[in-house]
């Protein structure tokens, strides 16, 4: 079937099988490899993308179901080649990853969280990422990355003398 998929601000007119998941469609048809398959049954969260700004599991959704709704992948939050968003940079600063496999999903979840809540508590951050499994880090440096990003983003538009 033919669908129109709006991914990272670009509308793609593509032919998919009805059974093609959004994850497979992004990876195989649109060559967006940043979303990763982990469990393919909706538990690990490695395939997370933003669906109209909300973090969802692209392995549990058919591509056809996503037609017409704006989708954001990790490729869509990277400002330009070689340049990092404040959240991506904060993950680098705290080393909020090891193998990098769950990382794009974690960053997208952080984007969704901070868009709604610029000053999350530790508990709110822990809660936001609790649907995303990381086997490498034990989460501590991920939580710190999101807190650091939040702090920097809050400070970004303040006069410099008022920044922390």
């Amino acid at each position: 079937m033919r669908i129109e998929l709006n991914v990272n601000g670009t509308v793609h007119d593509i032919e998919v099988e009805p059974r093609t998941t959004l994850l497979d469609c992004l990876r195989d048809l649109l060559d967006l490899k940043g979303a990763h398959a982990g469990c393919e049954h909706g538990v690990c969260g490695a395939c997370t993308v933003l669906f109209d700004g909300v973090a969802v599991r692209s392995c549990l959704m058919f591509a056809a179901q996503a037609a017409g709704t704006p989708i954001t992948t990790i490729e869509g939050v990277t400002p330009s080649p070689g340049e990092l968003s404040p959240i991506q940079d904060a993950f680098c600063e705290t080393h909020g990853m090891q193998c990098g496999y769950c990382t794009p999903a974690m960053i997208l979840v952080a984007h969704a969280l901070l868009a709604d809540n610029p000053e999350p508590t530790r508990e709110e951050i822990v809660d936001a990422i609790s649907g995303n499994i990381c086997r490498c880090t034990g989460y501590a440096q991920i939580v710190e990355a999101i807190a650091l990003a939040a702090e920097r983003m809050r400070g970004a538009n303040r006069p410099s003398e008022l920044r922390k």
Partner: protein
Amino acid sequence: MSAHGRHRYVSSDRRVREDRRFVAGKGQFVADLDLPNMRHVALVTCPHAAARIKSIDKSAALAMPGVHYVLDGRELAAATLPLMTGLDTPNVPRRPLAVDVARYSGEWVAAVVADTRALAEDAAEAIEIDYEALPFVLDAEEALAGGVLVHEAHGSNVLLDKTFVWGEVEKDFAASLKKLSLRVKWARSSTVPIETFGVVASWDPWRDMLDVYASIQMPRYADQISITLKIPVTSVRVHHDVDVGGSYGVKRGIKHTVLTGYLARRLGFPVRLIEDRLENMRGGDAHGPERLFDVDVAFDDNGIIRSMKMRALENVGAYAGRSPFQLGKPIGAIVGPYKIKSVQYRAIAVVTNKTTQEAVRGFGQGPTNLALERTMDEVANVLGLDPLEIRRRNMIRHEEFPYTIPSGTTYDSGDYHTVIDKVLIHAGYEELKAERDLLRAEGKLAGIGIAACLEPSGGNATFEALLNPAITTSTFMDSCRINVDGMGSITATMHTTSAGQGHETLLGTVIGEVLQVDPELVRVTRPDSLNSLPSGTPVGSRMAIMLGGAAFHAAHKLKAKLTAIAAHDLSIPLERAVYEQGNVHDRNALQNKRSWVDLVQIAFRNYHRMPAGMEPGLGVEHVYQVPTGGGLPTADGRVQMYPCFSFEFHLLLLSIDPDLGTPEIVRYMLGHDCGTQINPKIVRGMTMGGIAHGIGAALFEEFAYNDDGQLIAQTFMDYLLPSSHEVPAVDIIDHETPSPHTVLGQKGSGESGYLGAPAAIANAINDALRPLGISINTLPLKVSKLGDLIAEARAEKGN
């Protein structure tokens, strides 16, 4: 600056260079590769715990559109050799696809190749296999007793049964007033990376070349592919620039690779096999140890443990890879951090009709540490001593290093009592006990858990020779090549894949340190296997020691060459030439110097200015041997396996809801000493990640089987991985006792979180349950099990 006070980059809080690509989703994982004309594999698996394969009907599958091939075990076995094993067990052959008999539920029986993975899965369902179910055995003790044989031709289910006696065990037992016996069980779990195993193979018949891209972490990978596929190893090119999405030991997909490599050669196009989660959990052969311990200790009234007997029975599953060797590594630290004078150790490995095991983080040390640390607590309990006190009394003291344990290993360095003191000061041990008692007063079950552990790191693989005398391997090398090019830029190489350990950062940091140049200026590349020097791969907590050591020595060779060129060009004796930040000057006349640019100019373009006989160019390499060398075991089974021993001390407070059985870690503190930390961000991440794994093994994770031999935890809804809710904040208290053996004082740091956490949690739970008169020594302690135990105990007590 580190405690050495002389490092520029080592131990400083620097970023990890690999992270930039990962945060952008630009890691290069195996599933991200799209080779032209590539086809996809799906697997047909056996639904029985054991079965004879009577017939395989491929016709319906082959008739489906987009389907290219169906491979069965007989065809593959006729064309290949069995996979390499560690022990000499020729009648227990392990192959990628079952031949005539399948020996566990989920074992691969056939492989389908189709245009897409979805089509391959459709076709896999259309393959008709006629099975005759066979008797099976799941339990290790039943398997040991005989009865049902997993491999008829082997004549028993025992792969290994070896007893070591180090010291006067019987005499020490006879002379001790007190004895204690304990049975401890570590259930089957694994590290279960979020990326499953995957491999892409492509055969070029005009160049005789098999290109392999895989999410692999495995020593001698190319060798094994070559031997099994019966092609020269020079026709196998393993690409090391594939990012591995987590491994922690288990990414050893040799059977996947042999299968895929065979298909690529047979069919003439690239073939890809990426496990789905079910294939990974059931038939990926990546389960970890399942071990039963019987421990006897002899001790005196003061709690000084004189002697220990340990029997370890390992259920390795249906086939043996390297997994029985996981009974060998613990020998290198068999007494942990304690001064136990004599030890008897019996290591038994049996096959059963369960999934085949693979190496898991710690290579068997985690279960052994659980047995040891549970024993320490029980001794304390019997004597009415504080579990902290019993450990302090038995631990090796700082001034006693280097310390040789009964099994022949000499520990390098440590300051255990100081690490413990630092943790206690941080925690406030008395306050922690008061907090526990307060929780108890509130009606909770609450306990304090303590566990120490050692992390043997950087070893020479002599546990192989110890368990199989036919093996004479006494080295486990790593290597680094550094080239300064004609433009003066520095490129360093490493010769294996990585799974998040930050090895590119390690190389940059160490080389930058030695050459006194910004580590970011050091480009790190990963040549393929045909262009590689030897690497033992990132197993056994070895890369900081071994790759770091190789890079350090290679950088010193480069420095020496630059210094010699400068001395010659300045016409001064070598000893007057001083290397500083890439330039070389005359000690006696600072203005007489040659810059980095000058030296590159000489080495690349002015041969007439080079010292006589010196090779032009600026390429150096170093192949590094384990710093304590390599000797084979003595006749009585003593050997130095590992050069370095990191130390951890875990202390936590845990409370259990008495009605639900839900455990909650209230506080967690950790003392950690891995010598010099080359990159503190990496070390902290490894430590925290290890603890998270340990929490999983202690409380949640189990590859559980039902009585029919079916794996019942085969998705992430049944096999529970700790989320951010289950992993508490941990206060890590660092201490630094450098190793005298390593180039920067570093030791390994990839495992100890995992080695200590399960024991500490088990001890906390036992402390919490003690008022109910319950003791439990079987992991994992799942909520359901805890809830039932508590309810039973309370019913008996009438409350």
